């Protein structure tokens, strides 16, 4: 038995680390979301799974009263949100360090995800995202292209998810 890490030439599914980014969890009543969206400079989507991007900031609607905001590190979204706090009471929490992001791509990426994700990933429209489970670990899955995904994983679940991804990658490369 060997313990060498194999490098397969033809990458059917590529898993890459993404650079750290600013992530904010926003909870606000649906009635106040428009006010807050105006302050942040984007129109907060109301449909679960929908995404809106403006000026480097991206908002994903996770639930009826929950949004995930992503932006480049150093972006200040707290100050404009604080300015409208009296009109639109909300909770805005920095969760940048809670999760790590992976980029999953390649021709077999759907098979890679289907191995551990119960949701029908192939049916996810491009440009949407969803919180789902990956072998019981909660992840947020973003579909950026037909074979181009991002996955946000809670930091403590990351070794488990990475190990599974590596194992499935090996199986795909071996033609299983």
């Amino acid at each position, binding site marked *: 038995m060997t313990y060498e890490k194999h490098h397969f030439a033809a990458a059917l599914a590529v898993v890459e680390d993404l650079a750290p980014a600013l992530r904010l969890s926003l909870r606000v009543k649906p009635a106040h979301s428009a006010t807050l969206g105006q302050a942040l400079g984007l129109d907060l989507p109301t449909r*679960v799974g929908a995404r809106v991007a403006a000026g480097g900031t991206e908002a994903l609607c*996770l*639930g*009826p009263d*929950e949004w995930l905001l992503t932006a480049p590190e150093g972006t200040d979204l707290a100050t404009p949100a604080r300015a409208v706090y009296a009109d639109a009471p909300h909770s805005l929490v920095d969760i940048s360090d809670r999760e790590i992001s992976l980029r999953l791509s390649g021709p077999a990426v759907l098979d890679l995800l289907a191995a551990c994700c*119960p*949701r029908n990933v192939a049916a996810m429209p491009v440009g949407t995202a969803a*919180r*789902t*489970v990956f072998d019981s670990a909660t992840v947020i899955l973003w579909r950026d292209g037909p074979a181009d995904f991002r996955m946000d994983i809670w930091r403590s679940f990351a070794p488990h998810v990475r190990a599974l991804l590596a194992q499935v990658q090996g199986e795909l490369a071996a033609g299983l």
Partner: protein
Amino acid sequence: MLLIHCPYCEDSLPELEFAYAGEAHIARPADPSTLSDEEWRDFLFIRTNARGPHYERWRHISCGRFFNALRDTVSDRFLMTYKAGQPRPQLNEAAE
């Protein structure tokens, strides 16, 4: 795999994204200190244990919301799901 319709996501999604959360439509007493021991026991522990259609709460991991479902405990078929806070639908409504 069982597909459950989430009334908030408006989509039928796999069972693994959902968690069961007990019987639905059990309101917490407004003032628990005025209840007798028997009434408090009934609130805490006494459940319908239905054989057939059962009103129950579920939580969807994806949108983080609790909702209510009417499920047949014999066939495990979901007759309908509806948002939390809505009144209990009648059985003949669910059959339509």
